[in-house]
């Protein structure tokens, strides 16, 4: 039981992700978790603003159902399958984050400053979350996929485009992490 309640190691997680990719192929779909954002825009009448959203979004409802499942899965994992969700980070990372004002590094699953209810009354936190989300949504559609679509599915299919996209993910991620986050946090 402890094996389930403790955090799962990478060699369990990676194969599970590959299995999920296979299951989606097997039910006639493709692994890509950002497509549902486009479906939301299309369902909300985005076709009036751009032909990019002018398609029969009802055919893509499946990706909203997968997203709903991910919400339920998150609830199950947090409430039924975890005793202590604290992430065991590298000590250097804990020190570094504490210096940047993230005091709960190593003691929590998410930084409280941004992801607990307190953040709702902190305009700076909300702006960071909004900006981060915007870049993820914009970048994922621009690149034609996100971590699941490119780093897992695309690379598994040996696509050069996906390799370039993953290189881009790391260029952007490293710039943000090393040069911008110290000023933003």
């Amino acid at each position, binding site marked *: 039981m402890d094996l389930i309640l403790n955090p*799962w*190691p*990478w060699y369990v*997680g*990676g194969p599970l*992700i590959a*299995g999920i990719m296979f*299951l989606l*192929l*097997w*039910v*006639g779909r493709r692994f890509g*978790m950002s497509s549902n*954002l*486009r479906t*939301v*825009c299309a369902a909300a009448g985005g076709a009036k603003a*751009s032909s*990019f959203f002018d398609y029969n979004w009802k055919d893509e409802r*499946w990706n909203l159902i*997968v*997203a709903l*499942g*991910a919400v*339920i899965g*998150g*609830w*199950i994992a947090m409430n039924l399958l975890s005793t202590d*969700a604290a992430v065991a*980070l590298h000590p250097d*990372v804990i020190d570094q*984050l504490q210096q940047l004002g993230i005091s709960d590094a190593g003691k929590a*699953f*998410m930084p409280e400053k*941004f*992801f607990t209810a307190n953040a*709702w009354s902190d305009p700076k936190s909300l702006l960071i*979350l*909004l900006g981060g*989300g915007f*870049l993820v949504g914009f*970048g*994922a559609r*621009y*690149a*034609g*996929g996100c*971590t*699941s679509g490119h780093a*897992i599915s695309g*690379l598994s299919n*040996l*696509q*050069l485009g996906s390799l*370039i996209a993953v290189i881009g*993910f790391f*260029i952007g991620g*490293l*710039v*943000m992490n090393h040069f911008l986050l110290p000023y933003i946090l």
Partner: protein
Amino acid sequence: MRSLSYLFIGILFGITMFKVEAASWFRIYEMFQFKSFHMYGIIGSALFLGVIIIQYIKSKQLKDAFGTPITIAPKEKTIARYLIGGTFFGLGWALSGACPGPMYTLVGAGFSPILVVIFGAVLGTFVYGVLKKYLPH
């Protein structure tokens, strides 16, 4: 029935993202600091098996559960959209600590401000749709 299979796969995905801590802002930060093998192990082992699975499907021309041959559309042969779009995505990934899949997982796990990230992601998707014809691809 098909809807139920999508829901089941989503649940399995959500549990996995949380339990392997791929949904944790901290793990993404640590990954970009190159201080832990954890995230690289997850992506690497998923890829190792993923390549085998996809190559097997292709070589055996497997069919899905409904008898339709499994085909995977190749990505376009351009560079600009992947490099530029990817860089935008990476900036957001490192800032919000969440890629699109884990965002939904975190809603369920009760980290309510993630809803702001999701709202931003929908907005970003919408703005891309509007600007698409002006952007280099």
